[in-house]
């Protein structure tokens, strides 16, 4: 018998409640003291298709899914066809016999069949057919022996707003399904989930953590146009806008979104525009305006596979070089690439500090895998008491005493010009998107062009000295060093743990503060590597290219993937054999 080390996978069509069932079960596990990592996979359609939700549960913190499935809940025949082979020896498949599954098909699999008349139970208990999902949760809890009080609590919370009748019906259905499973299959399922006493934990995704970070940084203005997988940030901040004093503008397009953020940023409000790669492509023009006129803004690209529509609901890290280089002309920018939920929160507030400190666009590059894979987090993992740094912002008192005519784009050693917000009588200025002089007035003079361009680009060097060194995971010295960025660090951490448990020695260098690339810090982190393998979810190896371009360090191999599905630890280990 194995306790608290298993994966529960739910597969079905869009519209069948795969996500809500998965989220409900995951929440119950977290409330039961377990750590979980949730993986979602869905198509860009509202009905039909095949979706799944996969929950890895353990006693300890986990950073990704893996490929083993211990219990599959199949809501369709397709789910069985797709996933039966993933089920480990001793594992099982819960399905409704009404699906008319050919049991001889299952006979050849390692998985044990657990036919449960889910719809029938739901109807028999006075519920409706849609409560088959609740029956499924009851059945899963029965097989794994998981605490029913916790499950009931989640059911109460999830259905509470639909009234006590709906709650009671769902509770009855779950209990009946559990009884059915216990009577029919007894205690035969070898993978168990046991409640453990521990501190409460949050079940939270990257988009949610990033939104919280932005909120805590005092982001007051958010403009965006919905685009998967970036829209949940816009939605989260919209839902919380009234209570926490944020202005949200669902704009006519991404061109408007970035320019609205610039308008708000120019006036002195912390402003953000979240999107995905296609929307970011439209924002490139506006980003140049913010670069030239030195307007602090935060843009978020939650990547999906492109180009064009690409794979709308899926995962890739194909926009790194685009985020760094997308520009007409040259201007400084900051790019943060969080890889974990905690880092999403951190990037969410740091981007605003960096944008204001360097008066330029600060970009966050996230991805679909990070955006909607929830993980259990300790309550203090997100420290809401975040540092706020508004940079060289002139106060009203300083402006009251201004001795000379205000120069918005004053030439300074750091490149940063003390900023006055429009509205003070002593600092009336106009800022032009044409090249301008120190006052902000249009100027085509060659000497002024050099002065202003060099001033702006100097901010990049000022920032480079200040941004953080790469993050290390694993022992300081190792035979094998992995270089990575973004959410790939999750499965990579699991792979490295497995390697080190086997007696090998491996570590990870993850670059989160990715632009301006902290060249010396990256060089120092990678110089001593015995064997250096880059792991990233794209075709060309964009981080490997970037690191080589600026440090001269060439990786010994690249583990990549571009099928729209995130890497698993198993995939990384299998590819490692090929590249070494």
């Amino acid at each position: 018998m194995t306790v608290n080390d298993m994966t529960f996978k739910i597969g079905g069509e869009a519209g069948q409640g795969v996500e809500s069932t998965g989220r409900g079960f995951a929440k119950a596990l977290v409330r039961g003291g377990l750590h979980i990592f949730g993986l979602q996979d869905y198509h860009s359609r509202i009905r039909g298709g095949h979706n799944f939700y996969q929950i890895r549960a353990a006693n300890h913190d986990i950073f990704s899914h893996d490929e083993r499935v211990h219990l599959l809940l199949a809501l369709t025949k397709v789910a069985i066809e797709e996933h039966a082979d993933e089920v480990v020896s001793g594992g099982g498949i819960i399905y409704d016999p009404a699906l008319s599954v050919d049991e001889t098909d299952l006979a050849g699999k390692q998985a044990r069949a657990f036919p449960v008349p889910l719809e029938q139970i739901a109807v028999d208990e006075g519920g409706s057919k849609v409560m088959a999902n609740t029956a499924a949760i009851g059945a899963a809890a029965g097989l794994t022996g998981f605490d029913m009080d916790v499950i009931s609590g989640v059911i109460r919370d999830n259905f509470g707003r639909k009234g006590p009748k709906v709650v009671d019906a769902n509770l009855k259905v779950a209990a009946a399904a559990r009884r059915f499973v216990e009577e029919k299959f007894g205690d035969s399922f070898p993978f168990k989930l046991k409640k453990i006493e521990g501190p409460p934990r949050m079940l939270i995704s990257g988009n949610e953590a990033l939104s919280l970070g932005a909120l805590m940084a005092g982001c007051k203005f958010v403009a965006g146009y919905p685009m998967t997988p970036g829209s949940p940030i816009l939605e989260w901040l919209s839902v919380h806008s009234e209570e926490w004093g944020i202005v949200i503008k669902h704009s006519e397009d991404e061109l408007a979104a970035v320019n609205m953020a610039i308008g708000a940023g120019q006036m002195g409000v912390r402003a953000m525009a979240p999107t995905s790669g296609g929307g970011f492509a439209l924002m490139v023009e506006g980003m140049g305006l913010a670069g030239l006129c030195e307007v602090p803004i935060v843009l978020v690209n939650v990547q999906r596979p492109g180009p064009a529509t690409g794979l709308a609901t899926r995962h890739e890290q194909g926009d790194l070089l685009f985020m760094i280089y997308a520009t007409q002309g040259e201007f400084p920018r900051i790019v943060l690439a969080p890889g974990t939920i905690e880092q999403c929160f951190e990037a969410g507030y740091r981007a605003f500090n960096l944008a204001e400190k360097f008066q330029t666009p600060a970009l966050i590059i996230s991805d679909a895998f990070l955006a909607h894979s929830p993980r259990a987090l300790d309550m203090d993992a997100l420290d809401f008491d975040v540092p706020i740094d508004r940079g060289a912002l002139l106060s009203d008192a300083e402006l009251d005493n201004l001795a000379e005519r205000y120069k918005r784009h004053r030439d300074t050693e750091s490149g940063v010009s003390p900023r006055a917000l429009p509205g003070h009588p002593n600092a009336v200025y106009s800022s032009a998107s044409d090249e301008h002089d120190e006052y902000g007035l249009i100027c085509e003079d060659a000497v002024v062009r050099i002065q202003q361009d060099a001033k702006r680009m100097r901010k990049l060097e000022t920032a480079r000295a200040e941004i953080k060194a790469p993050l290390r995971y694993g022992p300081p010295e190792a035979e094998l060093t992995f270089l990575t960025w973004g959410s790939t660090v999750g499965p990579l951490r699991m792979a490295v743990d497995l390697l080190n448990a086997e007696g090998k020695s491996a570590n990870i260098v993850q670059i989160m503060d990715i632009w301006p690339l902290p060249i010396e810090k990256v060089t120092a982190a990678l110089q001593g590597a015995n064997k250096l393998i880059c792991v990233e979810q794209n075709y060309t190896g964009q981080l490997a290219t970037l690191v080589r371009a600026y440090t001269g360090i060439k990786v010994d191999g690249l583990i990549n993937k571009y099928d729209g599905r995130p890497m698993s630890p198993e995939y990384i280990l299998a590819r490692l054999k090929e590249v070494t």
Partner: protein
Amino acid sequence: MVTAKDYSSPVRPTWCIGCGNFGIWNSLKKALAQVGLAPHEVMLISGIGCGSKLPDYTTANGFLTLHGRTLAVATGARLANHGLKVICTHGDGDGYGEGGNHFVSAVRRNIGIVDIVQNNRVYGLTKGQYSPTSPQGFVTRTSPQGAIEQTFNPLAVALAAGGTFISRGWSADIEHLTWLITEALGHRGYALVDVLQPCVTFNRRYSYDWLRPRIYKVEDEAGYDPSDRAAAFAKAQEWGERIPLGIIYRTESQPAYEEQVPALEAGPLVKQPLCTKTPEEYEVLKQEYL
């Protein structure tokens, strides 16, 4: 007391002699002085084009942005600080061409912006190509056989999109245009001031001499009621031998967008603290994830 001179700047305009922009510029400064707004109380936002250089020649808060994006930037600025009067000055190519979607959206949302469109019916700064408001058949460098598209009718489009203040001015009648702008400055939502403006270099066909005998003021027409939407729609179609000027349509019954945003009830966003509550009070947000 504020005077038009407070808005003058040592920077000299690069506009051609006889350009309609001079009339628009002077009318704007006079209107601002008349309503008693000082240069630090207004935010002039423009795009790119000859007319869009106006903020550069004016002492006032200003932001010269990107071609076509004027209204988007202005919308963000207005929502961030509705304590300042936000005024856009941009051309017909910027406002109705590249910025067409932003135009329709700004009208629909009734955001508190005075939008002065310097409508010379041609692209001037790029040296003479046809614009959305050029007439069909207009021969330019990019329409050597004559423009095929129908002429864009900003007044009718604004009406159809739910506009609440739709007006047309004439750059050569400074007194009337000044009045029009003061009315627009007093409007509670989005106010369109489309200004007919000759381009003496690239659009000789629609010159002062062509326009002058055709224009008339709706205010002078007995019985014209600018609150009558159907009448306004008919008036907006009028073009050719008679071209109406003045307030074509106006209603003060619609609240401005910013009046309806809960977060702005506490005053201009930029004046509010970054975080309104203590970190401890924000901890409640974590409960959502338990």
